[in-house]
C-alpha cells in the first residue's frame, strides 16, 4: 500500500475568500447592531464617544462601501441599507451630529461620520450649512491634529462637497508614510497611521490613482513585510486594515494564502477576532471587543472582491 502523498493545495482565489469574509462580517454586524444602541437620553456631550457613537460611523462606513462597490447580492444590499438606516436613526437623522458639531466646533468626528452617510445618499442640510460656516474660520486650518487626521477631514469634506481648498500634497507630505521612512522602524500605532493615510487619500480605494507614485512604489515594496510580521503575531485587526491598503493601490496587492487564513480565523457567525487572544464574554462584550475588526473585515472583503472582479 502506498503512502498517500500530501501536496500543499493552492489557496482559494482571493475573490472567493474575500467574499466569504465580507458576507459573514456584514451578517454579523446586522444581527448584532442592536447591541450598539445609544443609551436613552444621550446628548452630544457624551462622556465616551468611542463606545457607541463612533462605532455607528464605522458600521455606516462598511455598509456605504458595500453599496458603493455594487457587487453585493440583493440580500446583502438590503442588509447594508438596514445598517445605514439603523445608524442614521440612532444619530437622530443627523441631528446628533449637528448638535455635537455646533457645541464642539473643533471636533472633526461629526463631519467624518456624516461623510459615510453622504456616500450612501443621506443628507442633513443644517449640518452642511454649519460645516460650511466652520470651514471658513481660521481655526479650521490651525487646529492641532496628527497629519493623517487632516487627511480624514479633507476626504470627508471632499465627499460631502464642502467648498474647502485642500493641498493634498502638503497634507500627504506631513504624514509618516509621506516621508517613505525606514520600513523597519514602523510600530503598531504608526502602522494604523499608514493605513488611514492611504484610506483617506484614495477614499477607501475609490481613487487608487490619487496615491502619489512614490508611495505606491513604497507600499508595493513593504506592505508584504508588514503583513507578514503582524500576521505572525496574530494582530488580525491591523492585518485586515493592511489588506485594505492592498486594495487601495493602483496595482492591488492581495495574497491568496493570507486571505484564506483570514477567512479561517473569522468565526462561523462572522465575528472577526481583534487578535489571537481567546474571544470571551457574552454577546455585549464580544460586540464591544470585536465590532471594529468585523467592520474592517467587511470593508476589506468588499474592496478585495471588487478589485479582483475588475481585473
Amino acid at each position, binding site marked *: 500500500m502506498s503512502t498517500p502523498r500530501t501536496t500543499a493545495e493552492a489557496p482559494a482565489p482571493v475573490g472567493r475568500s474575500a467574499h466569504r469574509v465580507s458576507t459573514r462580517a456584514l451578517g454579523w454586524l446586522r444581527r448584532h447592531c442592536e447591541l450598539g444602541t445609544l443609551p436613552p437620553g444621550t446628548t452630544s456631550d457624551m462622556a465616551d464617544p468611542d463606545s457607541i457613537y463612533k462605532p455607528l460611523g464605522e458600521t455606516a462606513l462598511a455598509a456605504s462601501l458595500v453599496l458603493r462597490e455594487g457587487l453585493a447580492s440583493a440580500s446583502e444590499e438590503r442588509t447594508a441599507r438596514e445598517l445605514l438606516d439603523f445608524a442614521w436613526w440612532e444619530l437622530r437623522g443627523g441631528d446628533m451630529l449637528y448638535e455635537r458639531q455646533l457645541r464642539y466646533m473643533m471636533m472633526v468626528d461629526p463631519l467624518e461620520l456624516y461623510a459615510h452617510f453622504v456616500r450612501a445618499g443621506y443628507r442633513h442640510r443644517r449640518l452642511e450649512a454649519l460645516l460650511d460656516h466652520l470651514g471658513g474660520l481660521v481655526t479650521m486650518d490651525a487646529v492641532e491634529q496628527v497629519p493623517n487626521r487632516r487627511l480624514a477631514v479633507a476626504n470627508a469634506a471632499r465627499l460631502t462637497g464642502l467648498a474647502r481648498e485642500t493641498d493634498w500634497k502638503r497634507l500627504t507630505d506631513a504624514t509618516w508614510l509621506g516621508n*517613505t*521612512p*525606514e*520600513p*523597519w522602524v*514602523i510600530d503598531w500605532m504608526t502602522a494604523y497611521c499608514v493605513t488611514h493615510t492611504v484610506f483617506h487619500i484614495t477614499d477607501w480605494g475609490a481613487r487608487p490613482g490619487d496615491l502619489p507614485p*512614490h508611495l505606491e*512604489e*513604497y507600499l508595493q*515594496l*513593504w506592505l*508584504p*513585510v*508588514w503583513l*507578514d*510580521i503582524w500576521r*505572525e503575531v496574530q494582530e488580525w485587526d491591523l492585518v485586515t486594515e493592511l489588506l485594505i491598503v492592498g486594495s487601495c493601490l493602483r496595482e492591488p496587492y492581495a495574497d491568496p494564502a493570507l486571505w484564506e487564513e483570514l477567512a479561517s480565523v473569522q468565526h462561523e457567525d462572522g465575528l472577526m477576532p481583534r487578535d489571537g487572544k481567546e474571544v470571551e464574554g457574552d454577546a455585549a462584550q464580544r460586540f464591544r471587543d470585536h465590532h471594529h475588526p468585523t467592520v474592517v473585515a467587511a470593508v476589506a472583503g468588499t474592496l478585495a472582491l471588487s478589485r479582483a472582479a475588475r481585473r
Partner: protein
Amino acid sequence: MPNPDTPSRTDYTAAVESLADRVLGALRGAGDPAVVASQVDEAPDPKVALAAVRVLGPDVFAPALLAEAPFGPGDARAVAESLRIFPPAPDAAPEAAWRDWTTVRLLARYGGGSPGETLTDTPADTPEDTLGVREPTPPGGAGSPGSSWRELSLSMAQLSPLALPNVDGPVHETALDRLRDLSRGAARAMLRRDYPTAARLARWLACALHRGARPDLDTAALVRHLELHCGGGGRTALDTAVARGLLDRTQPQRPGGPTA
C-alpha cells in the same frame, strides 16, 4: 553519566564564539594576526577549535579580504586540517555546500598564493584542487527564481559568510538580482528583532552596495542600528563588522530616494 572528556555542545558553541571574537579583533586590526593558527594552537581541545573553523567557514578569511591582514601558512594548515577532520558532507544542504566550496577556494587562494586575486580568477578552480569539494548547485531558496522573498532571505542569511569583497559566484549574482527581496528580508528581521538574521542580510545589502547596486533600504542606517544594538553574540558582531567593512569601502549611498 556523560564522559567529562567528551566536548559538550556548550564547548562547541563557546569555541565558535571565541573564534568569531578573534576574527573580529583581527578585522579591527587588533590582537594576534595569526587568527586561525593561534586559536587552534591555544585551544584546550584542538578538535573543538577545528570544528569552530569549519562553522565560521569563509569568515576566517574576512580579515585578509577586508583588512588585508596576513593569512599565513599556519592559518592555511589549520583550515586544511579542519576540512580533513570534518570533511564536507556529500549530502549537505546547498547553503552548507556553498560555504564549504567557498572556504576551499579561499584556502587555495591563500594556501600559497598572494592575497588580492579575485576568487573566480584563482587557478585552483578544478575539483581536484579543492579537496574533492565540487561546485554545488545553486541553493534551493536562492537559486530558484520562483522562491518567495522569505525563502530567499532565509537561504541567503545562511549564505552570509559568502558576502565578502573579492568573492564572486552564482550566489552573489542572485543577491544582486534579488536585492529587493533581500531588503524585505532585512526589514522583516529587524521588525521581528531577529538581529542575527538582520546582520547576515545586512552583509548582502552592503555587499551589493560595494558592487555599485542600490538596495531599497538605507543600509548605512541599518548597520549603524545593529552596531548600537550590540546583541546576538560574537557571530552577529562579526556579521555587523563585515557589513561595516563593506560599507566603508563603498561610495556613500545617496540619502533619501523614494524607498529609503
